[in-house]
């Protein structure tokens, strides 16, 4: 049905284009000078037909399943859903959907079969309704745009206005994404905070979201204080930053000041490879190589190292961050005006003195911005910690211990079943909201510092 809708859309647009162009050409061959080229008259019609129709189809696609589902669920025999929690209702919904899709397992209840049939018939009717509405809309657009064709009609301006509007809406999509993120996080978090007090979440020092299975135990179990999770995140971030910043900085200094052009040309792309490796690969590397190596080293030294020590996750994250910090520091050092470098060298400073005493202090704001962005990356990094860090939240700052992070908890809470109204799943959104706010604050600060720094030397 959707395919037919798109085909109709395509044909109608082409028709509109040809009709209007033909009409415009006819006026011109009649000896009148057109304001706009005939092609623009055609385009005008094409856009006028295509844009609203496309919007209609997309809107329909998004809304149809929701509306139909609701109609089917409301049409169920009275009392079927009584006393069921939302998880069970979702299960029934899924079953009806799969029956409607032709995948029948076992012998479902007759009312489910009935509902599935109803769903199918509704979908069929919705399809026809879409085609009817679409045809009407496109016909109206066609007639209207044809009526506009005249010698004085400014078709080019019309087209350009529509195109400009389209481009503006493309740019506004970016805002919608942010708004969508904020709204969805806030909305789900509010539901969470209606079950768990905000203060408990913000200041609680126990994180035990593993809710018991039976509903009557809710009050007895489950602790949602995010402090230990935050602490774990910070431990891993600190490990990653302490390792990656010196290495990244030193590489940048070497590349900027000492390396020959040829070495630089080879070394920079190789460093960039480290940045291009997907994080799931780093996670695998951490569990396959780094964690066992650390444990063996710990055993050799007689230090107890947890199997999923924060050091492994943090260390591997550091490898990922090296090129990031190095390229930021490289840019910041290169942005220091040549005159300062010359001034220092002309006073008889060595290259190392020039770097450490003049260039580096001058570049600190730029480097600090880069390090902050790296911190925000480390906090938001998911796959490495999901694979290599622990699941249990504990109040420790020992990097040899196992710690958990915000992102690990989000993934563990949400992967698998998603009951949308248990505090367990909603807690993930509250954590997500905190993650978003923290990283956003760091990013804004970092971008501001970096921009100030650029202005300083431009």
């Amino acid at each position, binding site marked *: 049905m959707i395919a037919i809708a798109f085909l109709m859309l395509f044909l109608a647009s082409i028709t509109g284009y040809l009709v209007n162009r033909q009409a415009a050409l006819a006026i011109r061959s009649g000896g009148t000078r057109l304001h706009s080229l005939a092609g623009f008259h055609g385009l005008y019609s094409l856009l006028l037909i295509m844009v609203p129709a496309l919007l209609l189809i997309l809107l329909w696609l998004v809304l149809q399943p*929701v509306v139909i589902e609701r109609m089917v669920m409301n049409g169920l025999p009275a009392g079927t859903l009584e006393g069921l929690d939302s998880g069970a209702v979702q299960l029934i919904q899924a079953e009806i959907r799969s029956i409607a899709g032709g995948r029948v397992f076992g012998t479902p209840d007759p009312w489910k079969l009935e509902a599935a049939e109803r769903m199918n018939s509704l979908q069929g009717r919705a399809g026809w309704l879409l085609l009817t509405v679409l045809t009407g809309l496109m016909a109206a657009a066609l007639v209207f745009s044809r009526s506009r064709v005249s010698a004085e009609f400014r078709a080019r301006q019309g087209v350009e206005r529509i195109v400009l509007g389209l481009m503006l809406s493309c740019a506004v999509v970016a805002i919608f994404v*942010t708004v969508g993120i904020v709204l969805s996080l806030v909305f789900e978090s509010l539901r969470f905070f209606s079950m768990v007090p905000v203060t408990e979440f913000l200041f609680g020092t126990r994180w035990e979201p593993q809710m018991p299975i039976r509903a009557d135990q809710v009050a007895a179990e489950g602790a949602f204080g995010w402090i230990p999770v935050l602490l774990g995140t910070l431990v891993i971030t600190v490990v990653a930053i302490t390792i990656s910043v010196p290495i990244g900085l030193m590489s940048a200094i070497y*590349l900027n000041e*000492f390396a020959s052009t040829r070495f630089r040309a080879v070394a920079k792309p190789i460093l960039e490879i480290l940045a291009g490796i*997907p994080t799931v690969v780093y*996670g*695998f590397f951490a569990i396959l190589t780094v964690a066992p190596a650390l444990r063996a080293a710990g055993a050799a030294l007689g230090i107890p190292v947890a199997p999923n020590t924060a050091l492994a996750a943090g260390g591997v994250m550091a490898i990922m961050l090296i090129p990031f910090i190095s390229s930021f520091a490289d840019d910041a050092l290169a942005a220091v005006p040549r005159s300062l470098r010359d001034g220092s060298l002309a006073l008889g400073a060595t290259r*190392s003195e020039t770097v450490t005493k003049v260039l580096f202090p001058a570049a600190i704001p730029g480097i600090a911005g880069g390090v902050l962005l790296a911190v925000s990356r480390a906090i938001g990094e998911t796959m490495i910690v999901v694979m290599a860090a622990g699941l249990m939240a504990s109040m420790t700052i020992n990097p040899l211990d196992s710690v958990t992070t915000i992102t690990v908890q*989000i993934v563990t809470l949400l992967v698998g079943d998603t009951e949308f109204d248990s505090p367990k799943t909603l807690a993930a959104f509250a954590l997500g909201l905190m993650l978003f706010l923290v990283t956003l604050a760091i990013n804004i600060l970092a971008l501001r510092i970096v921009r100030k720094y650029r202005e300083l030397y431009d």
Partner: protein
Amino acid sequence: MTQTDLPADLQSRGHDWASPRARANVARRRRSETVLRVVGLGAILLAFLMLGILLWTLISQGSLAFRQTHITLNVPVAAEHVDPADPAKGNYRRVIAAAMSETFPEADTTEQRALSKILSNQAQFVVRDKVVADPGLIGNEVRIRVPVSDPYDQLAKGQVDTTSAAETRRLSDVEIANFRALEEQGLISKPLNWALVTANDSRFPELAGLKGAIVGSAYALLICFLISFPLGIGAAIYLEEFAPRNRLSDVIEVNINNLAAVPSIVFGLLALAVFLGWFGMPRGAPFVGGLTLALMTLPTIIIAARNALKAVPPSIREAALGVGASKQQVVFGHVLPLAMPGILTGTIIGLAQALGETAPLLLIGMNAFVTSTPATPFDASTALPTQIFIWADSPERGFTSRTSAAILVLLGFLVMMNALAIFLRNRFERRW
């Protein structure tokens, strides 16, 4: 200029640069210069070393999975196990057991059961399919070549330490001896493991392949491209060429920069709450994955496209405006074509990032155990990175090497995409 408190060697103009003190000072400074140089080089080499270890680990592990141990077996299909009237319902497990007992005539029943385990679980279905296709085979022998099961695959690849204590390994001495006997009969071979890319996921490592994941990733990338590319170009053109200097433009600008730095998992939460929760889109569908990745890739493409547009010199615009073209005619007729190579390069790099992205796909359920290739973007499926995640989580030894192999496949795709981007840049980039 009277200076009373200056030290003697500063009283007069100039210094004795040849004095021992001056020489020692220079020597010290030269040393610290060397130290910094060595430390800097050391830092870079350390990073290279890490990269080297990472790649070496992946290649040494992954190359094991590029070959799969197979066994070639003549299987007698006896009529007692398979009813010629309905060959699909036959007891093929027994058929396989019979074939093994023919190879090892002196084995008793318990040993026979163990012997059957040498073959992959797939073997019975291979025989079944052959018999169903040609029922005339009943009563005759079928020659099959099937993978051996994971422990024996590891043994054949030398990954089992046969000298260690028997309790610590998954194969007993007898089992190892049996397998060695098969090897001596020349029934064991190690062909290239095409199943790695032509088979779907499986519980058994020797059968598991990436086809479903590759198709899933391809669908997701296609959707991601179809959405983010036009949106990204539209937004970039608007912001770069048409946007008035006003609040809205500033907000969009700041917004895009911040969006580029939002952790990927937050996009996963957005997708879970909005696409799955509110719109009821199917779980684990590459379509939803592509949609999510598109939102993440959008800022990257917008920023790359704006830089490409910015690089087109104003003289081109002025020239076209000068002959009376409208602003839009200038942009679409002259500026955009010139900026296209740059935009495409940025887009490919953005898509390469999207291809490796895992976390948001986990949240929308693209980590399910799916044993079929998705037929449409709306079917549940995995993607390459999530498949890697699933396999990395699996306890079987065989999955370790397969995870590495899957990573090598993923890295292969990434290398190809980046190579294409570099090629585009070098081939079409203009220096103004």
